[in-house]
């Protein structure tokens, strides 16, 4: 039998070099393209991601794009359904979103938007092959997260004008916050052995106000809160706030909320 070639990606990075798939995805694709459609559809039923027969989401994107000149609707439909299941899994659960509030968009709407944008991209890719879906062959779940961010950004900007100017520039944290902060190592909490607990921590983080959550992320990245060296990128500078106190206040408020949500008592309990 002739060797079937796996098409390369055409999207290029900022420096002009082309994107490539991860090695394990390339290896999987090289064997997948030699299977019959029935065999591929059988493989799609393997749900355990640790199984050697599990088809990575990136491969499903490749296979569905490869059906461009095809008229086998049954095969296409099954690939599409499985891809959408993967897309749904890569999106945070609806209850993980904070309901209401000017900074948040309803989670179900966000999921629908991502699903619909992805579908449109696929329609475009079939009508005129492009590189917009290449990202999904590099790292599917990350690309879904980026698409979600973009889709939420559009809705959010429309609401941004209603966002009140915050008054965190000065002042001390409230006594309640001070008492509740204690020590909470978010990094450690996210490394818990218990997947359900990790899910709970993730939910608590997602429901934080945006400004507080961003401080937590930068702290987790070990970015300094402030520095006298102008060349050092600090949380204060990224946020564009005058005082490092603002950063600390946001951090403390976030930790207090998380401790409360996770049922972790304050050190004074």
């Amino acid at each position, binding site marked *: 039998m002739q060797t079937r070639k796996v098409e390369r990606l055409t999207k290029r990075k900022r420096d002009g070099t082309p994107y490539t798939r991860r090695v394990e995805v390339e290896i999987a694709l090289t064997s997948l393209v030699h299977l019959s459609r*029935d065999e591929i559809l059988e493989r799609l039923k393997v749900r355990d991601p640790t199984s050697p027969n599990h088809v990575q989401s990136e491969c499903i994107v490749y296979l569905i794009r490869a059906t461009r000149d095809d008229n*086998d609707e049954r095969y296409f439909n099954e690939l599409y359904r499985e891809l959408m*299941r993967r897309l749904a899994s890569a999106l945070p659960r609806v209850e993980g979103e904070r309901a209401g509030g000017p900074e948040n968009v309803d989670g179900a709407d966000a999921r629908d938007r991502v699903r619909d944008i992805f*579908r449109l991209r696929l*329609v475009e890719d079939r009508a005129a092959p492009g590189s917009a879906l290449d990202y999904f062959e590099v790292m599917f779940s990350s690309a879904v997260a980026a698409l979600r*961010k973009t889709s939420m950004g559009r809705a959010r900007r429309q609401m941004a004008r209603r966002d009140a100017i915050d008054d965190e520039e000065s002042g001390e944290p409230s006594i309640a916050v001070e008492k509740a902060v204690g020590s909470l190592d978010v990094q450690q909490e996210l490394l818990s052995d218990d997947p359900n607990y990790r899910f709970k921590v993730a939910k608590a983080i997602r429901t934080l106000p945006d400004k507080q959550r961003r401080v937590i992320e930068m702290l987790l990245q070990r970015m300094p809160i402030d520095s006298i060296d102008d060349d050092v990128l600090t949380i204060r500078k990224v946020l564009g706030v005058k005082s490092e106190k603002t950063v600390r206040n946001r951090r403390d408020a976030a930790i207090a909320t998380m401790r409360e949500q996770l049922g972790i008592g304050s050190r004074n309990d």
Partner: protein
Amino acid sequence: MTDQSYHDAEEILMAFAVEPEHDLGTLERYLRLYPELAEDLIDLSMELRLQRATVDVSEPVDEAWIEASLADFHAAAPARPAAQGADPFAAVASDELVTLRRSLDVPSSVIQGFRSRTVDIATVPAGFLADLARGLRTGVGELNAFLAGPPRLTPGLSYKSDHAPSADGGKVTFETLLEQCRVPEDRRRQLLKPRN
């Protein structure tokens, strides 16, 4: 924000998302290059972190949500030829057909009998059909759907005849096809025998 800047922002966030590492070095690089997207980049950085932390938490999938999207896709996708009759031979190179013929141990005229749909599918043992489908890298269902169509002129063949060939001769049984193709009797019997 214009459509173009939406597009640019999405490209930047996509590029960030598929970076191999999401450490401080990567985040800083993007923050310095695209300070106007600082909030989105930090949010995405956190979201990728949470995704990694909860990758093993399974959740029930809403199949109706998926079916709605599939229906929308078909409503929006450009019209395609009808699924019936998809030619499984179309994507197979001639040297692959030779290999297939050898692996099935039949003359090439038998393969042509399938390709031209002159064989009556109901008379073909399931085991042979499955081998043929596998060799064509298609499913038995797809092959059946193709073979159910009326006989046709085999594409790509030239005919040495004074008369234009026609494909209206009707279908023949698998056994007749094997006889016409002068498959030795022993091999014919093997091919016609149902497998366990």
